[in-house]
């Protein structure tokens, strides 16, 4: 299934692009991360400490064990620093 993957802040810088569309069979966020990190070193580096990252599924905060289901847009980013 085709899904849009978005990256923000230092994660975007490490991956080297703000968004991409990929065709994936991953069933959960964790599986998707495993698939991405296996692709290239820059992904492995970006996701080397998944515990320090956050994920949003279709613009709602979620977690790495969540099923992807019909999610179109998956965003990865570091903890937020607004305010």
């Amino acid at each position, binding site marked *: 299934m085709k899904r849009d993957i978005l990256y923000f802040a230092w994660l975007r810088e490490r991956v080297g692009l703000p968004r991409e569309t990929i065709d994936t069979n991953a069933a959960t966020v964790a599986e998707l991360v495993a698939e991405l990190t296996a692709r290239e070193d820059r992904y492995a580096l970006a996701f080397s400490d998944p515990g320090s990252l956050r994920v949003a599924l279709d613009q*709602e905060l979620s977690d790495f064990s969540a099923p992807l289901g019909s999610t179109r847009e998956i*965003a990865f980013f570091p903890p937020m*620093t607004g305010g």
Partner: protein
Amino acid sequence: MIPLDIRVQAKPFDYGQECGRFAQQTGRVGAVVTFCGIVRDTDTGALERMEIEHYPGMTERALTQIAEHAAARWDIKACTIIHRHGPMGPGEAIMMVATASPHRADAFAAADFLMDYLKSRAPFWKKEITNQGATWVEAKDSDEAALDRW
């Protein structure tokens, strides 16, 4: 639903003017609390600028949800949140919240809650640029811990 005014914008805003307008529009309610976050310089005065990245779409959605939670929990009659993104210099206003309530305690609590939540639940990321280079601001454990108060 109470009036929620949520603005995510690159352009500067006039804090004084926004406070005046908010107080005027909600004047008969009784109590207004406002807070403004300002770009802080480093201890050595080396900050050239701050850049704030955000997640268009999710940002507006998250801020609206946070404001709706506040409105469901406290007796507030109006709420404004303005948050900027993009580059800004030391001393410039980054964001503001305003709450209006018949009761002072509710206006304060709701504003405090909004600040705690938008710090770690709204998708903004700050980067500080000095003559030494650029650094992403790290989230503090205390910011996350602050949510437990609520």
